[in-house]
C-alpha cells in the first residue's frame, strides 16, 4: 500500500498503460457483476430442487395425523387434487418453478385457503422492523467497540470489550434471550414491585422492541467488534500510518482519514454473514418473544409439516442471503480498488 499524498501523477508518466488498466477494470467489473448475478440463478434453482426433493422424500403424506382417526381415502384424494399432489413429481416441480417465477408459492397446508405469499407478507413487517433496527445497532456499536479496543490495545477497555465479545459469541441467542427475560422482565418486575421492567410477551413499536433487538444483535456485534479490532490493529502497524504520525498530523486526522478508512474495508465483508445471522436469528428471537414474524411462521410450519410454507420460506431466506452476499461483494470492489476481480 503506497502513501497517497504527494504521489507523482502516474497518468503523466505512463499514459497508455494506465488508461488501458482502468479501462479493463471497468470492463471486468461489469463482467464480474453479471457473472455473480447469473450465478445466483443456479444456486436458487438448487435450493428449490433440494428442498423440494426432501419434501417429497419425506415418509408418509402431509395428511397423516399424529394419532387418532386418519382421514378417509376420498378426503385424501380430494386434498391431493387440491394441492396438485396427484400429478407426476417432475410435473409438480416444473409447475412449482413456473409459479415461483411468478411469485406464487402455493397454498399453505396448515391454514387452509391462505397462500404462502400472503402468510409471508403478514409476517414480513415484523421481521423487517427487527432486522433493520438490529442492523442499525450492529454497525455503529460493533465498529465502535472494535476501533476503541484496537486503539487502546491491552488496556482495560480492550480486555472488557473482547471479554464481552467472547461471551456474546459463545452464548447462543436463545440462551441470552431467555436469561434477559428472567432478569430484566420477571425478576425486575418482582424486585421493583412492577414499577420498572421490560415487557417480554406481545409486540409493539415501543419498549417491547428492546430485548428482541438486543438479543438479535449481540452475536453480530461481537463478530463485528472482533473483526474491526483485528483489522484496525493490522492497519495501525502499517508504514503509512507511521508516516502520518511522523509528519505531525493530528490524532483525529490519523484515526479517521488513515486508520478508519483502511481498516473498515474488511469489515464490509462481514455484512454478508450478518444478514445470514439476522435471518436465522429472527427464527429464534421471534419464537422467544412471541413475535408474529416470518421466523416464527417458519418454526410453526416445520413442526406442523406445512411443506409449501417451509419451501416458500426457505427459498425466501436463501434469496435474501444470496442477494446480501452479492451486494456486499460488489460494494467491496467499489470500496477497495486493490481487490482483484476473479
Amino acid at each position: 500500500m503506497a502513501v497517497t499524498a504527494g504521489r507523482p501523477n502516474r497518468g503523466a508518466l505512463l499514459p497508455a498503460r494506465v488508461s488501458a488498466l482502468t479501462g479493463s477494470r471497468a470492463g471486468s467489473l461489469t463482467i464480474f457483476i453479471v457473472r455473480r448475478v447469473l450465478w445466483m440463478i443456479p444456486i436458487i434453482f438448487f435450493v428449490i430442487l433440494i428442498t423440494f426433493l426432501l419434501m417429497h422424500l419425506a415418509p408418509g403424506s402431509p395428511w397423516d395425523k399424529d394419532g387418532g382417526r386418519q382421514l378417509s381415502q376420498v378426503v385424501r384424494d380430494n386434498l391431493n387434487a387440491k394441492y396438485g399432489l396427484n400429478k407426476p413429481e417432475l410435473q409438480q416441480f416444473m409447475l412449482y418453478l413456473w409459479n415461483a417465477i411468478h411469485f406464487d408459492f402455493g397454498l399453505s397446508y396448515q391454514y387452509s385457503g391462505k397462500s404462502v405469499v400472503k402468510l409471508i407478507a403478514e409476517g414480513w413487517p415484523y421481521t423487517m422492523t427487527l432486522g433493520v433496527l438490529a442492523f442499525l445497532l450492529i454497525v455503529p456499536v460493533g465498529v465502535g467497540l472494535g476501533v476503541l479496543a484496537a486503539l487502546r490495545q491491552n488496556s482495560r477497555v480492550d480486555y472488557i470489550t473482547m471479554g464481552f465479545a467472547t461471551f456474546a459469541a459463545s452464548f447462543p441467542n436463545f440462551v441470552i434471550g431467555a436469561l434477559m427475560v428472567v432478569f430484566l422482565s420477571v425478576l425486575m418486575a418482582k424486585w421493583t414491585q412492577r414499577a420498572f421492567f421490560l415487557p417480554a410477551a406481545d409486540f409493539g413499536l415501543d419498549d417491547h422492541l428492546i430485548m428482541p433487538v438486543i438479543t438479535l444483535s449481540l452475536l453480530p456485534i461481537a463478530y463485528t467488534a472482533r473483526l474491526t479490532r483485528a483489522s484496525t490493529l493490522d492497519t495501525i502497524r502499517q508504514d503509512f500510518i507511521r508516516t502520518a504520525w511522523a509528519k505531525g498530523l493530528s490524532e483525529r486526522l490519523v484515526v479517521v482519514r488513515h486508520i478508519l478508512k483502511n481498516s473498515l474495508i474488511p469489515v464490509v465483508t462481514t455484512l454478508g454473514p450478518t444478514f445470514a445471522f439476522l435471518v436465522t436469528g429472527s427464527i429464534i428471537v421471534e419464537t422467544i418473544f412471541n413475535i408474529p414474524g416470518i421466523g416464527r411462521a417458519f418454526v410453526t410450519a416445520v413442526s406442523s409439516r406445512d411443506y409449501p410454507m417451509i419451501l416458500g420460506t426457505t427459498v425466501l431466506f436463501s434469496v435474501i442471503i444470496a442477494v446480501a452476499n452479492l451486494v456486499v461483494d460488489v460494494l467491496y470492489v467499489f470500496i477497495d480498488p486493490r481487490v482483484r476481480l476473479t
Partner: protein
Amino acid sequence: MAIPVAVEQAIDWEIGEQQIGLWRDAWQRFRRNRLALLGGALVLILVVVAFLSPLLVHFGIIINPTTQEVEHIEVGPGMFRHVLGTDQLGRDTLSRLMFGSRISLSVGILVQGIILPIGLAIGLTAGYFGGRIDNLLMRFTDIWYAFPDLIFVLVLVSVFGPSLLSIFGAIALVNWVGLARLVRGQVLSIKEKEFIEAARSSGSAPFKLIVKHLLPNSLGPIIVTLTFGIPQAIFLEAVLSFLGVGIQPPTPTWGQMVFDGYEAIYANPTSVVFPALAIGFTLLAFSFIGDGLRDALDPRMRR
C-alpha cells in the same frame, strides 16, 4: 577450512532447538494458555458427569431424571432435597442437567465423527486432483453454503422426523462443508511444496502421497476446525430442542429444559437459568479450547 568453535556451537544449539516436535511444542503452548486450560477442565468435568450420572442414580446419590414428584412442582433451588429445584412436572433439575450433558456431548463429538470422513474425502479429492473434479465439488459446496445452517437443519428434521439419528445426521450434513473447504485449501497450498515434489519424483503413488504427506501436514487446522465444530453442533441440537423439534421427551436435553422452564418462567425463573448457563458455559469452554488449539497449532505463531 575449520569451522570456528563458536559457530559450531551456535549451529548445534539451533538444531537442538528445532528438535522439539510440532506436537510437543503445541502442547507446551497450549499449557501456557490459561483460558484454554480452564475450558479443558470444564469439559473434563462434563465428561465425568456424563459418564457417572447413571451410576449415581443407580446408587441413589441423585434422583432419577424421569421421576416425578407431583407434590413438589416448580420448587426453587435447595428445597426438598432438590439442589437446583424441580421443573413443571416435579422432576429434579440437577439430575436432568447431568443427564442432559450426555446428549450435548454425544451430539458434539459424534457429529464430528460423521463430518471427518466426508470432509476429508471430498476436500482431499478436490484439492489433490484439481481441475474439473475440484470445480464440480466446490460448486456443490457453494450450493450447500446457500442454505443457512439452522434453516437447513430444521427442514431436514421436519422431513425425517425428530429421531436421534436424523438430528445427528442433519447437523452433520450442514457442517461438513466447512471442513471440506479447509482440507481442500490446505492440500492446494501444501501440494506445491518441494517435499511433495520430492516424494512424487521418487515414485510415491497418489494414495501414499495423500496419506503420508498431505494429511499429516494439514492435521493441525483440521483438529482446530473439528474442535470449533463441537460447540456449533451442541448449539444446533439445543436450538432444535428449544424450538420443540429436537430430541423428544422424556430424554432430558438442555435445550428442552430451557424451553420447559421458559413456559413456566413466572412460577420458577431458576428452571430457565440453570440449563441456560449450562449451555452457555459448555459452548464457552469448547471455544476456549478451540482458541487455545488454534494458537498452539498455527505454525505462524511459532517463535
